């Protein structure tokens, strides 16, 4: 079940099932491809398994107690669920922005260089270059360029979230995961984040869990509708919202439930 | 580069894990060394001598009953002082006093907990026991009573601190529910808050009294150090000798490996077991109530 003309796949998810240790089943037999250099939106009502899937893509679910995990996730052909995978390298390649902005208790600059320093980067020129580049890409450079050494906590909520995005970009990942990144933001900040996503997809593969159907419709190149751990429909963005094939998708996007 | 990082990480993680188990290792080591030095006693002294009423090591009388009763009477006396005052103060701080006063009183009481016991013993000798001697017309003020009063003072900070935490942890909604039903604050304290915090208060009492049993320097300095059987309530006014004080006073003068040495370690073993029982009992109360709280919350 996927659009016939899907561009070249960056990520290929094959028959992925996941069950948490507390017995709740979160994903059942998910298979679909995520295309490179597009914005793929995972949407649907809460508890559908979107965030769980996101956390599988960079193995952040290793931190939670998972009872059962079957299937494969191929990123550029390599199965990242393989126990032999270097998860640290994987997480540098697959960055994640969370629902609530969590700035680390450092300066703005140190927030941005944190990931690179963990990776062993010590060259000052590289770090400085990464700070400017990532801030520009996240549309934050102009606002903070004169106070890079201020504590990051002093930024506004919207700025903090863009800093979190920039922090991921500083590592130059291949894939960016965003889990309801604008749920706590005002409309103007939301607009800025959405605008930068459109820029970013030229360089990166973007996977977004939006915080509303409207945002899904605005941003999606491709859209996957999740309901209770199952992938119900996967289509071109426009098609999923204007002409859904599945009744359940239609009910959801027209606001009959959810 | 990458390789060395993971190698370092591995070593550090190992070291942290090993340190994590250190508490178990030390409890085990302490028990082992007490057994090693204390168990030979059973081959050297008949049990009937050991559980006799005469402690006079120079003539090889090793009856530890006077020491046990000495510890008991001082501890009971301390509990009678510390429980009402400790709990009363905890209730006052948690329920009656204004918030700012709590911020002053609690650190102050905990400060007493930090006073070295040798200082309290010192004041016991110079101030408390002369006062008791005159007040109660005793031959000497260095008595079980002086020990009990000071030990009470040592147990109070523990009791106040833990009991106050327990009272403070009772959800505000419980209290508001009782007030809404027309109960006064006083009724609410005794019928709602206090019962809700019961297990925490119980833990406080056990740990406070446990501290009193194990206290050494203060009792050694003020109880007069007479190893006589103390069973009548009247013994509270006469000098006694506790288990802890006996070890502290005599260990310095015995030859290691002698019978006397082994007996002192045997007393240490008894003390260790008492503290083990008290603490396991106290912590099981905590664990049980925590589980209950988790059930209520989920």
């Amino acid at each position, binding site marked *: 079940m996927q659009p016939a003309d899907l561009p070249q796949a960056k990520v290929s998810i094959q028959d992925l099932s996941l069950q948490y240790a507390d017995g709740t089943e979160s994903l059942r037999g998910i298979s679909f491809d995520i295309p490179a250099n597009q914005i793929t939106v995972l949407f649907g009502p809460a508890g559908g398994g979107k965030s769980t899937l996101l956390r599988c893509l960079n193995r952040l679910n290793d931190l939670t107690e998972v009872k059962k995990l079957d299937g494969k996730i191929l990123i550029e052909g390599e199965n990242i669920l393989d126990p032999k995978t270097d998860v640290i390298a994987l997480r540098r390649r697959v960055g994640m922005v969370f629902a609530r902005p969590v700035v680390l208790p450092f300066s703005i600059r140190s927030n941005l260089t944190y990931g690179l320093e963990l990776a062993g980067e010590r060259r000052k020129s590289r770090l400085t270059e990464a700070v400017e580049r990532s801030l520009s890409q996240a549309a934050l450079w102009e606002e903070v360029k004169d106070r890079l050494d201020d504590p990051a906590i002093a930024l506004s909520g919207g700025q903090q979230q863009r800093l979190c995005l920039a922090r991921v970009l500083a590592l130059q990942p291949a894939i960016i995961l965003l889990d309801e990144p604008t749920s706590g933001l005002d409309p103007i900040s939301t607009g800025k984040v959405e605008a930068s996503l459109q820029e970013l997809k030229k360089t990166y593969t973007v996977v977004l869990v939006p915080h509303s159907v409207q945002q899904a419709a605005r941003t999606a190149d491709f859209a996957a509708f999740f309901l209770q751990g199952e992938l119900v429909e996967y289509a071109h963005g426009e098609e999923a919202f204007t002409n859904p094939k599945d009744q359940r998708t239609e009910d959801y996007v027209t606001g009959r439930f959810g | 580069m990458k390789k060395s990082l*993971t190698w370092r990480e591995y070593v550090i993680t190992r070291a942290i894990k090993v340190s*994590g188990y250190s508490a178990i290792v030390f409890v085990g080591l*302490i028990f082992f060394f007490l057994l090693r030095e204390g168990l030979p006693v059973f081959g050297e002294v008949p049990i009937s001598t050991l559980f006799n009423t005469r402690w006079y090591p120079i003539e090889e009388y090793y009856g530890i009953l006077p020491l046990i009763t000495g510890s008991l009477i001082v501890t009971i006396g301390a509990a009678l002082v510390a429980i009402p005052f400790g709990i009363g103060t905890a*209730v006052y701080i948690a329920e009656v006093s204004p918030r700012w006063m709590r911020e002053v009183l609690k650190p102050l009481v905990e400060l007493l907990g*930090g006073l*070295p016991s040798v*200082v309290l013993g010192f004041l016991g000798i110079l101030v408390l026991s002369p006062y008791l001697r005159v007040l109660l017309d005793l031959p000497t003020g260095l008595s079980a009573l002086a020990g009990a009063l000071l030990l009470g003072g040592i147990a109070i900070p523990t009791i106040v601190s833990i009991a106050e935490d327990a009272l403070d942890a009772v959800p505000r909604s419980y209290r508001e529910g009782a007030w809404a039903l027309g109960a006064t604050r006083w009724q609410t304290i005794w019928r709602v808050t206090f019962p809700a915090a019961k297990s925490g208060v119980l833990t406080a009492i056990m740990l406070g009294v446990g501290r009193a049993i194990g206290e050494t320097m203060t009792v050694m300095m003020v109880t007069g150090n007479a190893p006589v059987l103390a069973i009548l309530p009247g013994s509270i006014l006469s000098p006694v000798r506790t288990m802890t004080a006996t*070890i502290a006073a005599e260990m310095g003068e015995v030859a290691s490996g002698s019978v006397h040495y082994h007996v002192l370690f045997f007393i240490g073993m008894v003390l260790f077991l008492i503290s083990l029982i008290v603490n396991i009992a106290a912590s099981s109360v905590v664990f049980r109530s925590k589980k209950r709280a988790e059930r209520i919350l989920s």
Partner: protein
Amino acid sequence: MKRFFSIDRDIVQRLGFSFLTIMAVVTVVPIISVVIYIIVQGGPAVSWEFISAMPHDGMRAGGILPAIIGTIYLTIGTAVFSVPLGIAAAIYLSEYAPDNRLTQLIRVAIINLAGIPSVVYGLFGLGLFVLFLKFGTSILAASLTLSIMTLPVIISASEEALRSVPQPFRTVSISLGGTRWQTIRRIVLPEALPGILTGVILGLERAAGETAPILFTGAAFFLPRLPGSVFDATMALPYHLFVISTQVPEMPIQIQYGTALVLIVFVLGMNIIATVVRSRARAKRQW
């Protein structure tokens, strides 16, 4: 009828509250008096000579320098062993330990360590460090004994401080490619440091004031010189106070009070430092 009832309840409450207030006063006033009394009585005895000179005339004159230095040595020695071990154990419990029976056993062991009578630590130190490991009656043996006694305080306080660092910091760090240890070292530990420091100071404060554990492991009745190595025995303030108040006849009373004053200044000074560290860190905290 109803009115009488409510007046009655009012009176009960008022009496009850007064009663509790009196209990609190009776508990708190002696604490303050003890401290003030020692300051008043001991103050006149304390002079530069008192804290900087060796004792002479059978300790009935001169200063208490060796006891002060000894207590400082013992406190440092205790810190050397107990601080790294205690913090590492706290990191294990807060960051690594699974929620299972073994971890519960560790917690029970910590609670028990905290409850073992101090004189039993003394016996243990005598058995293991002085005799079995043949360290002799020494600063080393006494410090090791005190550090094991201090360990539960440091572990509990440090674990609480580590746990209070918000979980999302860890998740973010891991998601940026951090290993667990990198996350601990760069974020969790620095943020928990003030709390850990408070716990460490409170633990060492207890060690500095203890007498029973060092009685047979490292304390010297009288030493006419400062200890030269960790294998020397040493004088120490709490033991010295015990000695001069019970073992030395015709001891001038001012010297006794002066020694008590120096001891509580030492111990309560650490307590106050801990309180200040804690409250300043709370004011500065960003979360």
